[in-house]
């Protein structure tokens, strides 16, 4: 069964540093998403991406965040200057024209 993959599985960074989280969505999918989950809390929507542009973003997704699909296979989330409160699991998801979103295994981001 095809699956969404994410790298790295765990990223440790210092406050103020830039991080890029990478995702490879399922190959024929058209819609891409990033979610995050702070430890012990709900899964929160960050951003959706379609046709090479952002279709919706949440209040969390401020100017420090950006997304890109640089090469037709990867989908990246960049945090320009990380803060302690950015520590969370970040999940990438993708879907085709149907309703089911497929989630990746997540990247645990730890900001120290």
């Amino acid at each position, binding site marked *: 069964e095809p699956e969404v993959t994410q790298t790295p599985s765990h990223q440790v960074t210092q406050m103020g540093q830039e991080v890029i989280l990478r995702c490879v969505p399922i190959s024929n999918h058209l*819609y891409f998403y990033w*979610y995050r989950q702070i430890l012990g809390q*709900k899964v929160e929507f960050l951003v959706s991406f379609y046709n090479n542009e952002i279709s919706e973003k949440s209040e969390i997704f401020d100017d420090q965040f950006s997304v890109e699909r640089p090469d037709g296979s990867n989908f990246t989330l960049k945090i320009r200057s990380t803060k302690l409160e950015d520590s969370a*699991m970040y999940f990438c998801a993708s879907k085709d024209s149907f*309703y*089911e979103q497929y989630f990746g295994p997540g990247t645990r981001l730890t900001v120290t």
Partner: protein
Amino acid sequence: LAKTTQPISMDSYEGQEVNITCSHNNIATNDYITWYQQFPSQGPRFIIQGYKTKVTNEVASLFIPADRKSSTLSLPRVSLSDTAVYYCLVGDMKGGFQKLVFGTGTRLLVSP
């Protein structure tokens, strides 16, 4: 997006049937009811989706009464590996960009 209410936690034993009920009083005409499952440190995984009456797949059944103000996820003969958080989501899932809005979910603990 309609707000959902579900129990915070449930306990069961191996081999029993588990029914998790979700209340969604403000469900809209175009809304579907979708359930996701999440294991610790993993991304959510789609279980089942329905609009009305009953839907069954290889892992679960979803019962939706005529007024659609609630729904029940039924897991037959649970095993230890069904221990997870189960999320009920309501929304117009046919939209291409549809983001998922997760609540706190129901934490199911299956014991031997």
